[in-house]
């Protein structure tokens, strides 16, 4: 994605708990830099115009579309991607709940769904179904019909309460 002679700007940001520094062209989207410079391919790129929510990440704890900001704007930011959540052996409660409740099929929307759900539960530990649907309304899923995703978030709230 690099252009010859393009001006680059050095940025430092916290990515999944580690301070990282990288030189970026101003036009590079944060979504592309996370995938291509840091290898965080859990940042799924769908529509690249803010409609689908697949590229959702947490910036300073808040879910945002990483395709709608330039990496250069993330100077000093704290970024969390799905890679920060858990491992196959020790999954995050939100991931466990999506697995238990079949809250995914093809998996393309899943990182965005999981991160949005985590941000919701960090603020509202025991959300109503309506609150879950409001929070997830910006994340499109073309497989599940959403019902199992909503159930997964309800289950995640239970798992987190059980600690």
């Amino acid at each position, binding site marked *: 994605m690099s252009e010859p002679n393009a001006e680059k700007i050095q940025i430092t940001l916290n990515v999944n708990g580690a301070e990282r520094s990288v030189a970026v062209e*101003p036009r590079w989207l944060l979504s592309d830099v996370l995938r291509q410079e840091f290898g965080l391919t859990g940042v799924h790129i769908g529509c690249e115009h*803010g409609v689908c*929510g697949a590229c959702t990440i947490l910036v300073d704890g808040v879910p945002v579309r990483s395709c709608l900001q330039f990496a250069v704007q993330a100077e000093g930011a704290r970024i969390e991607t799905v890679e920060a959540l858990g491992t196959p052996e020790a999954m995050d409660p939100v991931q466990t709940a999506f697995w238990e409740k079949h809250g995914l099929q093809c998996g393309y929307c899943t990182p965005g769904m999981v991160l949005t759900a985590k941000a919701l539960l960090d603020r509202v530990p025991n959300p109503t179904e309506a609150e879950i649907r409001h929070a997830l309304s*910006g994340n499109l899923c073309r497989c599940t019909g959403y019902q199992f995703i909503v159930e997964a978030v309800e289950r995640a709230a239970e798992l987190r309460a059980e600690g």
Partner: protein
Amino acid sequence: MKPVAFRYHAPDTVQAAVGLLEEAGFEGKVLAGGQSLVPMMNFRLARPGILVDIRKVRGLSGVRFESGYIVVGALTTHEDIFLHEELAHRLPVMRAAAALIGHWGIRVRGTIGGSVAHADPAAEWPAVMMALSASALVSGPAGEREVSMEELVAGPLTTTLEPADVVTALKIPAPTAGERTGIYEVARRPGDFALVGAVAKTKGDSVRLTWFGLGTVPQARESDSFGSLSEKAQAEQLSRWGEELEAESDLHASATWRKRVAAVVARRALSAAASDDAGLEAGERSGLHV
């Protein structure tokens, strides 16, 4: 789906931003929340050569209550506005309108100043600001000036702002006693752009309606005696107004449909104005207290 190359500046004062924009001329563009500009750049519908990011400019965010006015900083996000308790108390339509905009990930980045300067015909803020007789505070090479919303919005995605102008705030007259405002819109999904929307402002028998999402700019109609009319006469008046409005056809709805729905949306916006929350609960909102 990637933007073309551009030069990037992130000044920390309005004066510096205006200076950079002056130098950039027609190549320059202000970047605020980026939730409309970045998609347009990704599609290469917008190809600014120089981007002036104003997110680091101090003092452009937040709500101030001044004598007779409410001043909302240009960088105040839709989510900030939605969550602002005192603003919701003094002017409930601000929360009700913010609740209709985009989704969580959009709302936390998108700004009121950006929305107004972008002038999307289906956007809530230009219509709400027009309905509230607000003006934009604009900084440019010649200093600061106040531009009424009618003067600012020139057409679809078009304003009368000069290339080196920066919108710094929206100045809204504080509501007078008995004045009520409400909003209602129809969209395909909560958070999508409105197919048809209306803001109703009432005081006694007088009514002013400002529609958005139909034509190229928000459109208003008013009557001093609307409240004294019979229910039937009111419905007829709303249908007549709907017929009169300029409306466009697109993939989602025909102009004829929009004109008919304009009357229904207006009636619901009037109910919203009569309610205590300006239509928040009655609306198909995407906003959530989190």
